[in-house]
């Protein structure tokens, strides 16, 4: 016999023995038998054969036995659904038991038996238990609703349990409230769009009251739920914060971190100049520090979260560097996390202390930790410029220790320091070269080779060094091979005389003997460059490299925002959005911080991004000039020619075909009718600006665009139509996107400059080429502060129309040059002609009549617009928003005739007649007659159809 009678059970023969015992008359024997069954179940043995016998034991008044049988049932009911039904009666009976503990036990267990047939029987008892007089039963029933929902969501909805659950939020017992909140939150997660957790100020108030009274776990449920609420204004957000802050003193770290989450989120809404904002910031630091005296596992979770918090709000912990110093017996995972935070907090003020610590760490035993410490020294150098010299000397000291992995790591970081501060610390190269032989890791070898190649002119025996690496070329990893190839080419360009042989050797090794495509391609490129144009080769290979930036490991801002909303959860531990590790519908909703002035994606740009996909420069084919004028690539139905070929190389053809039948007016009016229902809009609101796919536009987007550019000028809606004019790839990391708009009579070019490079950009300036309407910047480009890496800046450039004029093809094409400290970049864009319509374009009625007749027929064009859903009045008022004025209206034979005028900035008048056939909302044909006058010599007849077309819109 073994020491543990329940765990000594072996196999089949015993099943029979157990069967006999289970059917014994003696209670004690029965109980012991069930215990044995459970024990074997636990260790993974199959005891499902005993199902009927165990269920027979269920009808007992012995609670312990009952619990054991229930435990067995939960485990095996699923494999024996028919047998499980046998137990239902007892469950239902138990739900009526006078003892609340038994009622709760029964309803709890029933929820755990995940068999469809049983759920039907569960509904009635559950309904009763949800309204039970005893809070213990109610709180158990609340969780049971979530269980049932997990098995059969439809049933829960049909039975109206959700409403009952909502009512429990107002329960008098705090624990019932907490469990109801937990259950509702879970159910709501699988119905992202339902308004299940209808959080309004009243419910929030109830939750905050319950928060003071319930158990620590209940407080966590409530705080996590609160974090999903978005307060209406800063006052509400402040009052919630005030009621949540006491939780920061709770002994349970989860309560503290969940409270931190609520505060971090709601703080976004508080104005920064508010006294309370400062107080709150101060209050956050001590509890976060206290978390570091918790158990190591909790410290780890806390540190991962602090890492996020210091990225979002570095000011909170900037004075707390010391608490992140590593202790000798911290577990390794805590040590590594602490290092990360030390680097984040490193600043000029504390760098001396940090460096001293890091140097200590570099002598420890754990290899990973030591490596990270060495790497951290390098990152300090890059982050705090004043410390660079000190860091380099520390690294040299470490190299002197000759500990293999320390040396290698040090060389890797010194390479980065060279890239950040070129021509400053090259004196150390000699020391580095001494350690060439000890390098056995690819990364270190690659770094060393890079250094040798980059500074080949200063290293006398650079060719020998590189040659020594070349000997084992085939055994090296790709990283090293690529680096070696580049380094030797650099060397050759710097010292062409002595190294010809070497370069030929490496080129042939790379191109002929290697089967790595990357290596071969790079080899061929160099080979051709060198053989065709050595000067060009020099320019390419020895080009000045951009400096590397200090914070390359920062979490991308939108992800960071999302993670801040998930403080305390697994997402914050993994630093990944929940969708990356959670399957199914749960967790796919992306949470965001509430908007504020400082937030990177205000609703304005967020939505604009969604509709940003119109072609930046489409050159229309003949006959399609109409569409072009509208900045739409739409072919009028009358045109039989092929769709225009996009010059940008984007795949716009499909869109042209699809959008062919559409017209700006259609788009405008149609979408005016059901704004927000279009897929483009829906997608637009959630997506970050940069994430838009290039081939996005659905057929309606053309119409949308037009609506927005019309609307933008009058403020019907704030949505604007943003294009990427200059992609970052073409402009050494500078990305320019923007839009044209007419605001209060001033034409503006509204641009967002985004720096996607590693180095800072400054000295921006802008110039236009001569263009059709004489557009020119009315002032210099107002970019006063340098734009750091991953920063973006928004500028509005007012435009005048007094610049030099030259007819462009297409007419609304504008060529722009932008200069910054890196280079000059060119791009072309097209502006919507509507922005040229001036406010005083309303012609006197009499004058209109007279002029209309005077205009020769040659100056007239006609178009048809299909699928317009607005009546003439609505159309008229919409058009007025774009300075297209309705002079008169008449009704002839059921058709509305609108007479309209508009004036361009250069004084050209355009008159239009718009015929709307009423009574057919789905298919209205409008015929437009357009006449124009007052042409001056500088605008050719090309303008006319353009202007007319705009008039139609």
């Amino acid at each position, binding site marked *: 016999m073994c020491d543990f009678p329940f765990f000594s059970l072996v196999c089949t023969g015993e099943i029979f023995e157990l069967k006999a015992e289970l059917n014994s008359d003696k209670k004690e024997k029965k109980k012991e038998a069930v215990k044995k069954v459970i024990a074997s179940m636990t260790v993974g*043995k199959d005891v*499902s054969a005993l199902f009927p016998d165990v269920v027979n034991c269920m009808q007992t008044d012995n*609670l312990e036995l009952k619990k054991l049988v229930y435990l067995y049932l939960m485990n095996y009911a699923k494999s024996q659904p028919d047998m499980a039904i046998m137990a239902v009666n007892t469950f239902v009976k138990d739900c009526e038991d006078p003892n609340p503990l038994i009622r709760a036990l029964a309803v709890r267990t029933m929820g755990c038996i995940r068999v469809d047939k049983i759920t039907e029987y569960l509904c009635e008892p559950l309904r009763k238990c949800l309204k039970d007089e005893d809070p213990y039963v109610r709180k158990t029933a609340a969780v049971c609703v979530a269980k049932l929902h997990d098995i059969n969501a439809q049933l829960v909805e049909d039975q109206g349990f959700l409403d009952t659950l909502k009512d429990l939020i107002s329960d008098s017992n705090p*624990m019932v409230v907490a469990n109801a909140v937990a259950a509702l939150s879970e159910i709501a997660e699988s119905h992202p769009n339902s308004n299940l957790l209808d959080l309004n100020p009243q419910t929030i108030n109830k939750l905050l009251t319950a928060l003071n009274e319930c158990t620590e776990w209940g407080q966590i449920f409530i705080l996590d739920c609160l974090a999903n609420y978005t307060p209406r204004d800063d006052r509400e957000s402040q009052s919630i914060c005030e009621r949540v802050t006491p*939780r920061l003193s709770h002994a349970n770290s989860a309560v503290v971190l969940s409270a931190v989450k609520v505060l971090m989120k709601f703080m976004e809404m508080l104005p920064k100049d508010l006294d309370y904002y400062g107080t709150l910031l101060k209050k956050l630091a001590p509890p976060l520090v206290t978390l570091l005296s918790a158990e*190591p*596992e909790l410290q780890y979770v806390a540190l991962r979260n602090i890492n996020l918090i210091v990225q979002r709000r570095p000011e909170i912990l900037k004075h707390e560097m010391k608490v992140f110093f590593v202790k000798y017996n911290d577990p390794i995972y805590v040590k590594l996390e602490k290092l990360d935070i030390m680097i984040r907090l490193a600043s000029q003020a504390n760098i001396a202390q940090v460096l001293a610590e890091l140097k200590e760490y570099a002598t420890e035993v754990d290899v990973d930790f030591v490596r990270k410490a060495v790497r951290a020294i390098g990152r300090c150098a890059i982050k705090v410029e004043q410390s660079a010299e000190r860091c380099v000397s520390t690294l040299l000291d470490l190299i002197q220790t000759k500990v293999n992995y320390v040396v290698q790591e040090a060389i890797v970081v010194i390479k980065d320091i060279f890239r950040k501060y070129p021509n400053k610390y090259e004196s150390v190269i000699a020391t580095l070269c001494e350690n060439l032989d000890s390098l056995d890791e690819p990364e270190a070898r690659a770094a060393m080779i890079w250094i040798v190649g980059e500074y080949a002119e200063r290293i006398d025996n650079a060719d020998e060094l590189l040659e020594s690496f070349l000997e084992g070329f085939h055994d090296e990893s790709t990283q090293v091979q690529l680096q070696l190839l580049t380094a030797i080419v650099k060397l050759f360009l710097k010292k062409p005389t002595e190294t010809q042989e070497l370069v030929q050797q490496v080129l042939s090794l790379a191109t002929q003997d290697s089967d790595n495509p990357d290596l071969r391609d790079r080899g061929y490129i160099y080979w051709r460059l060198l053989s065709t144009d050595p000067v060009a080769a020099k320019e390419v290979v020895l080009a000045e490299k951009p400096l590397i930036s200090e914070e390359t490991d920062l979490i991308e801002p939108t992800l960071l925002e999302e993670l801040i909303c998930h403080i305390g959860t697994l997402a914050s*531990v993994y630093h990944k959005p929940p969708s990356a590790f959670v399957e199914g519908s749960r967790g796919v909703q992306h949470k965001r911080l509430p908007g504020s002035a400082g937030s990177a994606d205000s609703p304005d740009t967020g939505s604009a991004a969604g509709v940003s996909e119109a072609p930046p420069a489409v050159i229309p084919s003949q006959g399609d000039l109409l569409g072009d004028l509208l900045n739409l690539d739409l072919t009028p139905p009358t045109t039989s020619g092929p769709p225009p070929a996009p010059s940008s190389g984007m795949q716009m053809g499909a869109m042209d075909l699809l959008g062919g039948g559409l017209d700006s007016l259609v788009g405008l009016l149609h979408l005016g009718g059901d704004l927000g229902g279009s897929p483009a809009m829906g997608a637009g609101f959630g997506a970050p600006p940069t994430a838009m796919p290039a081939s996005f536009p659905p057929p309606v987007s053309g119409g949308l665009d037009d609506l927005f550019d019309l609307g933008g000028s009058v403020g019907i809606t704030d949505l604007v139509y943003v294009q990427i004019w200059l992609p970052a790839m073409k402009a050494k990391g500078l990305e320019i996107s923007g839009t044209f708009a007419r605001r209060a009579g001033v034409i503006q070019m509204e641009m967002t400059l985004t720096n996607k490079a590693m180095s800072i950009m400054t000295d921006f300036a802008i110039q236009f080429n001569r263009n059709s309407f004489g557009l020119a910047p009315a002032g210099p480009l107002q970019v006063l502060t340098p734009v750091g890496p991953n920063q973006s800046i928004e500028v509005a450039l007012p435009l005048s129309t007094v610049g030099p004029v030259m007819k462009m093809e297409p007419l609304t094409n504008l060529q722009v040059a932008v200069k910054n400290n890196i280079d000059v970049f060119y791009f072309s864009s097209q502006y919507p002609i509507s922005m040229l319509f001036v406010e005083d374009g309303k012609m006197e009625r009499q004058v209109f009549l007279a002029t209309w007749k005077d205009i020769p027929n040659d100056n007239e064009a006609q178009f048809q617009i299909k699928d317009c859903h607005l009546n003439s009045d609505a159309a008229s008022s919409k058009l007025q928003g774009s300075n297209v004025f309705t002079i008169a209206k008449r009704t002839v034979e059921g058709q509305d005739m609108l007479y309209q005028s508009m004036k361009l900035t250069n004084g050209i008048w355009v008159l239009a007649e718009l015929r709307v056939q009423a009574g057919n909302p789905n298919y209205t044909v409008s015929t437009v007659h357009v006449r124009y006058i007052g042409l001056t010599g500088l605008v050719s007849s090309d303008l006319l159809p353009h202007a007319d077309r705009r008039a139609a819109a």
Partner: protein
Amino acid sequence: MIGGLFIYNHKGEVLISRVYRDDIGEAGLKAEQPIISRSVPKPVSCLKRNAVDAFRVNVIHARQQVRSPVTNIARTSFFHVKRSNIWLAAVTKQNVNATMVFEFLYKMCDVMSAYFGKISEENVKNNFVLIYELLDEILDFGYPQNSETGALKTFITQQGIKSQVPTKEEQSQITSQVTGQIGWRREGIKYRRNELFLDVLESVNLLMSPQGQVLSAHVSGRVVMKSYLSGMPECKFGMNDKIVIDKQGKGGGSEEAAKSGKQSIAIDDCTFHQCVRLSKFDSERSISFIPPDGDYELMRYRTTKDIILPFRVIPLVREVGRTKLEVKVVIKSNFKSSLLAQKIEVRIPTPLNTSGVQLICMKGKAKYKASENAIVWKIKRMAGMKESQISAEIELLPTNDKKKWARPPISMNFEVPFAPSGLKVRYLKVFEPKLNYSDHDVIKWVRYIGRSGIYETRC
């Protein structure tokens, strides 16, 4: 929420497994090794086994040291804590509150130890029915429920629920306690003698440079209380918290402020047992509560300012050639001479290539422990304002190891009968309006113990 909870022994055998949700173990979790089991499990149990096995193979049997307490294996997350040889693992497939899961695992350990003492394989095996019962009660569908042992013990006992059927009043009393506002205390507690014990336990942490400069120092303290009080007593606890004293000083006479101002201490942060009314602390900074019965931790706090460092360690290390090291360490006690420090231990690390050590010390006993690579110097008692010294000659074996000896810090352990933070208990008032005993009738005991935390001096 938590999908399942497993308890393993050090070999990776499952002692307890409780699955709350089906999702765990369903997808993708395949153990790299075949399942070692003598009987072939049926498919259903097999699914659950997958999660169990994945953790065993990837964490418990992993070749390398565990690099994180949270492991993600095939989109399933495992949280684990270890108590002696026992692993507790919580499993989930959702984005759960990670802090809560760990807090729960610790709580689970506390509850188990409160029921059957040390968490060992033997105890877990002998109490598995109890553990299942507890798990059923304190974790429902993965949501932690009331886990206060005081409350749990009223209806989950070692033998199972009390065999005699409780009366109706008793039942509703149990349920209202478990779910109620004061879930940590039951009504109707009676003691003949109302008594309470307060222990202020502090651990003082120090990192000092060889030159005697304080690199970092902090005290983390706990106020632990044993209360044997009748009824539902309302308590108020007061200490020499600077903020409170300053506030009172403004209101009351300036004389008192001047008198007590010196002794007040600045508390960086404190956390409280859930019985303390946090909103009241936040608004008035007063600590009021209805205590649980028996042992519990009332509060934890942390201070960093004006810490009394009970000992100062002055190291002197001299390398004499390549094969000899001379070490001299002086310790000075820095507190009232009437007080006695106890259990003093100084640990002086020695290089790995030490071949022999000669020791001379004025007081206590010193020994070179080759297995620990350290000289351990023990002194039973030492009064305040004294100093003592040890000198050692360490002989080294010549090595050709280029790496220099890292010189780990000299660490120290001790126990002193005062609070190094300077914290003083000013009062603990007890009110019980319903029963007729007053604050004066309660016998109160206060004790201060200061211990060394990580108390290191670099050399």
